[in-house]
């Protein structure tokens, strides 16, 4: 019957020349490389912050989308649970922040954890059907969630402001005193806040995907039955990942509310937002750590440069075409492609692997046995 292809990374035997340079994890060169990366990130962020306010705003939305797409990446990229409903989590986070700030006078920063917890709980509930169904059917459920969200916002208008929207006054979004920033420097406050949160999210995703849980997630994606047979508790993995995924996207939603200041159900929380997030994920590279960041640039700047052509329709066509082209030409996404090319130049190994390839090839044959026939 239909055979699922499992992407087993086929590592070519190292060519005889100087490349790839092998760097042992934990060695001096490895540490130096890490420090260099940290310095590079800091420099890039500083450069971004010194741009004109409009650009800083754009970069902030890139950072926020990168967080949202990283959330989607956990479910769709690493665990193979395609979600077309992440716009709902984005919206849930945004409206949680909006309502708590506008109606209850909360400090915006304090609302973020509430949005995260709510999104996590809803994510677990939405993930529940994933226990019995997969792939296509889960996509249908999440599609319906994505469609329902704007309707629910409009239905409970007393609470959410309904179709007319919810406006957070600029004064309520002022940077906290301890930052030393003035009200007029709100864009800088949000830029740095989003940057710090994005870095924390990326570190968390990196650690999670390298842990036992991360291996269980990838195993669930590649072959559910083999994973279950190897002792992965599918129910726990799927619901927890969906919850976590929703929580991170909800966090991005909260930041988005602080960034945009005015929420409307038909503006940023429709299915189109979900499709944007999915496009970003696949352009950047599903199941890669930095793919969401690259994807976020695409999602923010493609509409920006194509919007003036014809009232947004062109950007819809571009999104559609890019999605299809990516599947055909670059299924691993930009970062996936770069990673693959990069491995030809620099290879990072653990200390145990150097000297003999025995460990790696043993791991390889074990992996192959897990393949479906």
């Amino acid at each position: 019957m239909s055979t699922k292809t499992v992407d087993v990374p086929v590592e070519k035997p190292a060519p005889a020349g100087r490349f790839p340079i092998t760097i042992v994890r934990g060695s001096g060169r490895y540490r130096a490389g890490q420090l260099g990366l940290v310095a590079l990130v800091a420099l890039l962020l500083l450069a971004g912050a010194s741009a004109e306010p409009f650009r800083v705003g754009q970069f902030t939305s890139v950072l926020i989308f990168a967080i949202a797409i990283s959330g989607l990446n956990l479910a769709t990229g690493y665990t193979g649970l395609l979600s077309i409903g992440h716009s709902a989590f984005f919206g849930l986070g945004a409206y949680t922040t909006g309502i708590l700030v506008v109606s209850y006078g909360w400090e915006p920063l304090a609302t973020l954890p509430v949005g995260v917890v709510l999104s996590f709980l809803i994510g677990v509930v939405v993930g529940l059907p994933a226990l019995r169904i997969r792939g296509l059917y889960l996509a249908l459920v999440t599609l319906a969630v994505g469609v329902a969200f704007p309707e629910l916002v409009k239905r409970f208008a007393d609470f959410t402001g309904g179709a007319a929207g919810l406006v957070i006054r600029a004064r309520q979004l002022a940077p906290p005193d301890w930052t030393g920033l003035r009200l007029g420097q709100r864009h800088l406050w949000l830029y740095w806040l989003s940057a710090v949160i994005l870095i924390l999210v990326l570190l968390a995703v990196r650690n999670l995907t390298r842990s036992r849980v991360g291996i269980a997630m990838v195993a669930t994606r590649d072959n559910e039955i083999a994973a279950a047979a190897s002792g992965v508790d599918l129910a726990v993995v799927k619901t927890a990942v969906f919850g976590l995924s929703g929580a991170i996207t909800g966090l991005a939603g909260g930041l988005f509310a602080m960034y945009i200041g005015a929420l409307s159900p038909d503006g940023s929380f429709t299915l189109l937002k979900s499709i944007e997030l999915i496009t970003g994920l696949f352009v950047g590279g599903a199941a890669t750590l930095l793919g969401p960041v690259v994807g976020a640039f695409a999602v923010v700047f493609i509409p920006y440069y194509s919007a003036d052509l014809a009232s947004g329709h062109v950007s819809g066509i571009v999104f559609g075409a890019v999605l299809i082209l990516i599947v055909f030409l670059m299924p691993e996404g930009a970062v996936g492609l770069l990673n693959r090319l990069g491995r030809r130049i620099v290879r990072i190994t653990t200390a145990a692997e150097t000297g003999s390839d025995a460990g790696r090839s043993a791991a390889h044959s074990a992996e192959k046995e897990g393949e479906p026939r």
Partner: protein
Amino acid sequence: MDIFLERLFDGVTNGAVYAIMALALVVVFRGTGTINFAQGEMALFTTYVAWALTTQDVPVWIAALVAAAIGFVLGAVTERTLIRPVRRRNDMATLVVALGLFTGFNALAGLLFNSETKTMPSLFPGGESDYVAVGGARLYWDALGVWLFVILVIGAVFWLFNRTRLGLHMRAVADNPESAALSGVPTGRILMLGWGLAGIIGSLAGVLVTPLSPHQLSLTTMFPILIYASAAALFGGLDSPIGAVVGGLVIGVLEMMITGYVEFIGGTLPQTAALVVIVLILLFRPTGLFGSRQMERL
């Protein structure tokens, strides 16, 4: 009583349209094992073409036929060029391509025909006085026309599936592609024809429903219908044509009754109600009412 009957008639009319849209989804699902999320938007596009023709004084019936023909070509070309190459890779790739088509076709319709709402002429007389009285309720001719038309379409599809060689091939490919190929069925061509057939059915649904839709023809006309049709197809069992028809009627009538009689939901949460139906079906009976049980493949 008469208001109940009127709601019932409305429900059956909507349900009939959902039924044929669901039938289009089922035809694709049986062959390809995926739901074509772009089905509704492809139908939207062909309906816009039909509308554009009627503004050039082309009779609406001819316009509907042209829309169906374009739907066939769109479906077949999509399968051949976009779906077949990625289908073997995995489910996700197919779904992502369908999402791309969804966005692309909607935006293309918007670009070519702008986002203003259009008035689509009906295939049937639709005046205020064109009705027959049934038990105190009004049954309009255009509703009756939709019923008859849908019965014809469904009859044609069943005839095709069960009485023709092509239909036999389609069922064989849906059942077991490898065996079908070994028995000499041109599997690829059959899949392409299946998608084309779904394109025809979808286009007809589009032309039928727009004159009845409260929003007339706009960029958002077909999406709710796709949602209801998905719910209907799931309800009946995704691989069962009979299930699609029954599911469509049930969902259509339920929609009218719920929005009519359940105040909390009213007119504002119709799609959310469809969502609840989808989730409940998937939780308690993932194969639907008429679906076959062996859908999990390894």
